[in-house]
């Protein structure tokens, strides 16, 4: 079986093969299988899977794009779509944080911690300096969040470069250190707990000042309309693509990803690449946390830190998107839609309980990652294509 990948191939090399082998088809089949199994779970609990998926889809607001949607439905769909895109924004960025590391042969499980740390930085700057000019305040808050995230992930890169510490272990540990540190900062008596005497017993930060809030460009700012963070995330996608495909750094990153030994012997500093790449990943994830704070949350509660999963979702986003810019966008949109469509606010409880549907999202997410983890599906498709190619000859 010469089609088998060598067992010690790096993750990046494997994924490159997947892209060549399956193109856009394998992610689609992966999704199909995941949704089928999810539908089975819906069926077992005595609900209609097709009606359920339809209700979830309508909850995402993506039906806004269809020309046949009636004007009345369109108003609701617009509100839903704004929510979906609000969730898509951080997912694009946490996805990029995982994808960029993968391209260098690194596995960044630390997106969650970097997201939390970025949010902390943003809320810290955002709640101070009231009265600063808005553009300046927003820029400063974003920069702080990005730098916080970059430093947090940079620790893992530094440890890998200096001591050879496995980045998987260090990023897992850094995740939990970030989560508990964040819980400490905003807890009762913590250094960043709110200074409002009426909220003395609430473990939540101060609100960010009005001058640090991102402008809303679609929908009502009072009703959590869509903020301009979406464009920042889209710009990050472009940065990711250019950085990876059109710069020396990107070339080195990909070279290290395919084979660190070969890269090292051709004069590339592997250690430096590990540090820089992890810092960039952290910058993406930190930006995700920042945009959530400045765009719609405006404060961080201890509960948010404990419950939020957007950083972990980034792993599924990147894997399903095959670590490419375009793929990351579409899978972020997919998971953003799933999260919004199954939320208490958007799913019709008469069709399917939102509490169940939220967990359905986790199941589908887990299945996607599980199916992507193996090359069986890909190798099988590859062989199928080869056979088709060789038969007529």
């Amino acid at each position, binding site marked *: 079986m010469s089609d088998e990948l060598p067992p010690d191939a790096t993750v990046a090399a494997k994924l490159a093969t997947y892209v060549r082998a399956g193109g856009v088809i394998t992610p689609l089949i992966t999704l199909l299988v995941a949704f089928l199994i999810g539908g089975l779970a819906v069926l077992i609990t005595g609900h209609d899977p097709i009606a359920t998926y339809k209700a979830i889809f309508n909850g995402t607001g993506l039906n806004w794009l269809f020309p046949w949607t009636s004007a009345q439905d369109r108003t609701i769909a617009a509100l839903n779509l704004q929510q979906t895109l609000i969730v898509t924004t951080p997912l694009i960025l946490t996805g990029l944080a995982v994808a960029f590391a993968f391209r260098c042969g690194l596995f960044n499980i630390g997106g969650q911690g970097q997201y939390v740390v970025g949010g902390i930085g943003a809320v810290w700057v955002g709640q101070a300096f009231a009265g600063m000019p808005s553009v300046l305040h927003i820029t400063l808050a974003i920069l702080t969040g990005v730098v916080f995230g970059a430093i947090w992930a940079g620790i893992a890169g530094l*440890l890998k470069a200096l*001591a050879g510490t496995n980045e998987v272990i*260090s990023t897992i*540990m850094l995740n*939990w250190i970030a989560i508990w540190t964040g819980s400490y900062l905003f807890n009762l008596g*913590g250094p960043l707990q709110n200074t409002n005497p009426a909220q003395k017993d609430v473990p939540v930060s101060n609100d960010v000042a009005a001058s640090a809030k991102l402008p809303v460009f679609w929908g009502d700012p009072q009703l959590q309309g869509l903020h301009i963070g979406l464009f920042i995330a889209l710009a990050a996608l472009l940065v990711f693509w250019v950085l990876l495909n059109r710069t020396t750094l990107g070339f080195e990153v990909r070279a290290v990803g395919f084979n660190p030994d070969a890269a090292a012997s051709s004069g590339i500093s592997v250690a430096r690449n590990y540090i820089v790449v992890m810092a960039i990943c952290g910058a993406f994830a930190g930006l995700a946390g920042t945009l959530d704070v400045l765009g719609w949350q405006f404060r961080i509660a201890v509960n948010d830190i404990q419950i939020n999963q957007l950083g972990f979702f980034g792993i599924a986003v990147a894997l399903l998107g095959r670590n490419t810019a375009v793929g990351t966008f579409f899978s972020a949109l997919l998971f953003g839609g799933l999260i919004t469509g199954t939320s208490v606010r958007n799913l019709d409880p008469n069709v399917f309980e939102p509490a169940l549907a939220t967990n359905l999202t986790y199941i589908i997410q887990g299945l*996607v990652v*599980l199916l992507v983890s193996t090359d069986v599906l890909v190798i099988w498709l590859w062989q199928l294509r080869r056979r088709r190619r060789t038969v007529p000859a």
Partner: protein
Amino acid sequence: MTPKRLGWAGIALGFLAFFIAVPPIMLRSIVPIVVVAAAGVVVGVLAVRGGERRLGYGAIVAGVLGLGGGYAATRSGEANLEQVVVWGALLASTLRYATPLTLGALGGLFSERSGVINIALEGMMLMGAFFGAWGADVTGSWVGGIAVALVAGALFAGLHALFAITFRADQIVSGTALNLLAVGITGYMYVAIYGDQGTPDDLPAVPDVSLPIKSVPLLGDVFGQLNLLVWVALAMVLVTWVIVFRTPGGLRLRSAGENPLAAETAGLSVVRTRYLAVMTSGALAALGGAFLSIGFVHTFSQNMTAGRGFIALAALIFGRWRPGTALAATLLFGFGSALAQRLPVFSPSGAVLFQALPYVLTLIAVTGLIGRSIPPAALGRPLPKS
């Protein structure tokens, strides 16, 4: 004295510095604490100079921590101290907090010693927590709950084995997938079966073991009234050590993790060994989870493991993939949790920060600052296909 003994003596002095500052001795002056802690640091430095880096640095850290803890204790009120530091209760709850971690770490040990990375301990534990509660509810007995948890954990781990070993998937990716899946599966079933009500109040619980040593000072308070699973966890440490390091099966297990090709050449089925190891791993982690739901809090709530599987993984790495040292690590982390539980008397937010301690210590351990933790040689490598 050998450097190794010096190192241990330094660590002991560091602890002593803290110990004399709290009840029952409770010295109110900082001077003796500084003297003892400084002695610990000096002895640690001597040990490092003598070539015993790991224990020596450990002694230095223990001395600094002892000084910090002791200083904090002399600055706080005597009444508060009496309330927080009740050694009997503190050590008993250390054992209680350490139990799920110990079982999880032992589970991880089986899997990782056989060469399969297991970052899915968290998910396996969560499965055990739910299925333990559900099994106990359905069968009406805690024995049934444990049995269901063990089977569910083993089957769930079998999925990891299927992907990691047979399909030769990336083990970290499939482990991550399992963690995500476990949250979804347990949450889905929990909502579907129990809805808003939650698990019933009369959920059968794993019984406590009452020993007739109540009147013995300290020992009676610590060991007199412990859950059965606490004892099982302690026994499993010994059992695991015997199996892994003193039986032919254990030798096979370790050879699959160190040099699978050589093991295969010697006629051993690496695939079968790894399957068995991973499924054992799942069963043990699930037992740890079941302790949480039907041994400790007597209810299940969504995502109730809350990172304990990762602390278990941390303990395994911190304990260098050995049962005894892993137990020591879980006891250390358990003591941290037990102390954090009582600290809110002083500062609620400070107690929260304490929860990060296991992760910080592990991060330091894996960087090699205090002696490197070296994993099994073939960890994460699938067997090449012939």
